[in-house]
């Protein structure tokens, strides 16, 4: 179809997806603005908790969405979805940062010693921080220049870290919840599903795109 041509996707599709990805953040920022101003807001009775969970949910969702790009391009038999992969991955990182900011600011009130104590004492935070630390070099090396500097092979190897990061994020979520709850398991199942699609691909033709 002509409207989904690569130039159109670059010119219009990307800004549109970018704006869509910002919606959750805009919602959060707007409601915090309202809350601080003492105006009605949708953050509920414990805005800090809402904020931590909301940003965490979206971080995890964007991680999984970016993992879904490659299988999607295979299903569509088109490399076009890959055009959006970097942006989606960076949004995952953006929401992870929002999540950590929410926790560090609202929960810990910038108590850095408290942060360190949490990281070494509380396993679910250790796991979450490990995922964040692994995601950081991926975000830093997301530019074209960095791909060149690293060389495609090494760059790809580095970016396979996401296969470890996503399950760590799911485990972090699972451990945060009390007992055995359904929601984290759904995210886990989606991750496994996406991995299974990749596994299947190994037999068939590889869809490649820059």
């Amino acid at each position: 179809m002509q409207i989904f041509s690569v130039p159109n996707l670059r010119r219009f599709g990307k800004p549109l997806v970018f704006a869509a990805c910002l919606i959750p953040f805009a919602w959060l920022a707007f409601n915090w603005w309202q809350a601080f101003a003492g105006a009605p807001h949708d953050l509920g009775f414990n805005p800090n908790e809402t904020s931590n969970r909301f940003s965490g949910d979206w971080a995890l969702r964007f991680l999984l969405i970016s993992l879904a790009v490659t299988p999607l391009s295979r299903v569509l038999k088109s490399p076009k979805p890959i055009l959006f992969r970097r942006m989606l991955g960076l949004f995952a990182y953006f929401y992870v940062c929002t999540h950590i900011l929410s926790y560090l600011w609202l929960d810990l009130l910038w108590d850095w010693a408290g942060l360190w104590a949490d990281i070494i004492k509380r396993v679910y935070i250790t796991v979450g921080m490990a995922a964040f630390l692994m995601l950081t070099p991926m975000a830093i090396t997301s530019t074209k220049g960095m791909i060149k500097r690293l060389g495609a092979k090494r760059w790809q190897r580095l970016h396979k870290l996401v296969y470890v990061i996503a399950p760590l994020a799911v485990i972090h979520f699972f451990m945060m919840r009390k007992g055995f709850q359904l929601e984290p398991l759904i995210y886990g199942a989606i991750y496994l599903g996406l991995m299974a699609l990749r596994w299947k691909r190994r037999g068939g033709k590889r869809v490649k795109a820059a």
Partner: protein
Amino acid sequence: LKTLAHTKTAFDPGETLTPYDAVTNYNNYYEFGTGKGDPSENAWRLKVAPWSVKVDGMTDKPGDYALEDLIDYSALEERIYRLRCVEAWSMVIPWLGVPLSGVLKKVAPQSGAKYVAFETLADKGQMPGVKSFFNVLDWPYREGLRMDEAMNELTFLAVGLYGKELPNQNGAPIRLVVPWKYGFKSIKSIVRIHFTDKEPKTSWNMSAPSEYGFYSNVNPRVSHPRWSQASERRIGEFGKRKTLMFNGYADQVAHMYDGMDLAKYY
């Protein structure tokens, strides 16, 4: 909800009350779902009248008691207590009810009874959380107190809040309030009171023994494995405040734990 006649008491920390809206819409009551808003959304299914409470175990007057036989509605008092949730948030709530000690005396525990155990209703027909496949807890919800804790002057049986009957999501028609312990000790919608000489099993302890002890006294020095208990967020405030030992009720309760290692008996 009916207005309940009551007398004021000196149990009042003089702190700003948590708004009714927050007290009745931000709840943990897993029988109605694990989300904070689930109870207020689902608890309309709970049928609170008629209500009876089974009293059994080491007592001279076992039996099924109608709510009205257990609670003297002409003697209700209002007590304003801090409520500290184990999840590090807190509220200040004006409860209506009667001291537990008087009710227990009425049902005559035997001298050998060392503990009193409580159970919440667990009815799949009324409680969507109970029929859910993914259960954090084993139903019915169970809680318990040592006899001296139960007889402490602070320990309260609430049938109302803010001058009216309890909303279902807050544990209607009758719930425990133990202000120096984490909120989950204050069991809701009680259908059974059982006297025993052995420490009773309690739901959160059964679910995660390393996280929730039998005593669960509010203690800023003993952290939960997943978060610190040193501070808390008062619902409605953005900052945090320091958590007080025994939730600020040390004068009335600390003596009961003399010589006990509270890090061990958390």
